[in-house]
């Protein structure tokens, strides 16, 4: 009875309108308008276009190659999301346990530094590291290992490595937030009740952090599924995703096709995100 209805008196039309209005006006309306542009372009309404025509949609969707690309985009994003969470979770756990200021600064700076480096330059860092004659392979190839060289780049592996690298900070951030919010007493209580550290993690820490895991998954997935530069530079032509096709078709002045592909990417990604969101709600109840 307390709390949620705090502003009951002000729950009129005007308050939400005033709060949501500015963002809607200068950000969401342009965004929706640009979706409308994509929408009308995709059905043939653009200067020099043929007028209403669903042909582009039909052709694209009836081509098995299109589906290969759609699935590649989603599969790639799912794999990247999986690894970001797999790595990001223990990293976030370790980060919230750092008590030295100096170590904290170093760790946070290193983890967030990829964001400070232009994507193009960063990709070249990976080329130098992972190519057949690069740093890593020359290390592996040296005595006494004499291994390899392994093909770590110009294929999906390279793209996944580089995407995990750049998207990891986006996974770590929400995870740290939820881990910090967990009341210490809960774990103390569990320990008091005789739970082993392993049991505490699986029965208390992890379930409580799931909302953060899902937010992390959503952000990483969204960014990975629409990634463009990294797959283009490190994929060596082997990683075909929708973003790449959109880029090509804008270059080819195939506005309709580019718009169709952009919208399909949007629909596919929003579909996956809604599934995540539904899962989020079912597990944790309707939020606010």
């Amino acid at each position, binding site marked *: 009875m307390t709390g949620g209805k705090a502003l009951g008196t002000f729950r009129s039309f005007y308050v939400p309108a005033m709060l*949501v209005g500015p963002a809607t006006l200068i950000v*969401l309306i*342009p965004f929706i308008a640009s979706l409308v542009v994509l929408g009308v372009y995709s059905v043939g309404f653009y200067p020099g276009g043929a007028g209403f025509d669903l042909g582009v949609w039909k052709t694209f969707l009836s081509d098995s190659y299109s589906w290969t690309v759609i699935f590649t985009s989603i599969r790639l994003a799912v794999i990247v999301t999986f690894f970001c969470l797999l790595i990001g979770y223990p990293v976030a756990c370790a980060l919230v346990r750092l008590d030295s200021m100096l170590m904290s600064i170093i760790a946070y700076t290193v983890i967030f530094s990829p964001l400070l480096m232009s994507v193009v330059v*960063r990709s070249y860092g990976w080329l130098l590291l992972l190519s057949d004659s690069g740093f890593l392979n020359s290390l592996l190839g040296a005595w006494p290992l004499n291994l390899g060289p392994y093909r770590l780049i110009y294929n999906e592996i390279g793209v996944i490595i580089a995407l995990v690298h750049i998207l990891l900070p986006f996974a770590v951030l929400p995870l740290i937030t939820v881990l*910090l919010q967990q009341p210490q007493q809960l774990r103390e209580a569990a320990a008091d009740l005789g739970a082993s550290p392993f049991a505490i993690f699986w029965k208390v820490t992890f379930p409580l952090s799931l909302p953060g895991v899902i937010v992390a998954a959503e952000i990483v997935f969204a960014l990975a599924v*629409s990634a463009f530069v990294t797959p283009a530079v490190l994929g060596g032509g082997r990683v075909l995703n*929708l973003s790449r096709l*959109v880029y090509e078709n804008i270059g080819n002045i195939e506005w309709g096709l580019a718009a169709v592909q*952009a919208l399909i990417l949007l629909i596919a990604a929003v579909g996956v995100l809604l599934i995540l969101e539904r899962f989020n709600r079912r597990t944790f109840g309707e939020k*606010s």
Partner: protein
Amino acid sequence: MQARAGDSKAAVLMLRMVLGAVLVFMAAPILIVVANSFNSSQFNVWPPAGFTLDWYHKALTMPQFQRGFVNSVIAGVLSTLVVLAVGTPLAYAIVRIKFRGKSLLQGVLLGPLVVPRIAMGFSLFVLYLASGSGLYGSMSGIVLGHALLMLPFVVSVLVANLGEVDPIVEEAARDLGAGAVEAFVRVVLPQIRPGLIVAGLLAFITSFDEVETTIFLVKPVVNTLPIEMYLYLDQYQDPTLAALSTLLIALSMLLVLVGLMFAKRGSLRFLLGGRGA
């Protein structure tokens, strides 16, 4: 390491090892770029052929990089301010108020994250021209475009933070005589400061690294630094950009250090883990 309740020694040791390995992974491509920035070969020969500071000289003296840097700072600061100014009330409405169309709004908010940036750039370009607004090739146009791309991040960070602020403290402030806005400013804003800092940093960095959308929106006078870097790389492949990136990283670290010196210890402990009590 600060042990938390229910930690076992083995687990803490393992976490430390994972963190160490991940730090190496995160730093590796960056260190190699930094090392390459001193490479005297103009062809990225690895291992480096010799030591030189020429690329730094070049990076610092090329007029397009200087102008691009200024433009990027202006675009980054303005778009960050805009997105925080409109994103904070939006996040507040999502967390605290029930209104019609809220779930639709939340759905739309995910959009700018997943529409390919290229497509976003193209359709904004069409909009800017078709609306006759003069936004194309203007700083306002870039700021608007960047604000659009950042809004989902900013709102999701702020929603998470606002969710942590007990609405009852706002009632308390109102009860003590504060108006609705005053209560928000005096009680809620100070409590979400870490969120505002994180959201602002993410937004600024997004703007500072944006190429795919921006390239459709710029004219030369407003070219941002990443655009200039992109154009440079198309023609030249020497380590100038490695030097420029190293400078940018050094600059941001400097800013972080300055921030550390001026920030209150308490607020930082919140950001850096282990809630300060």
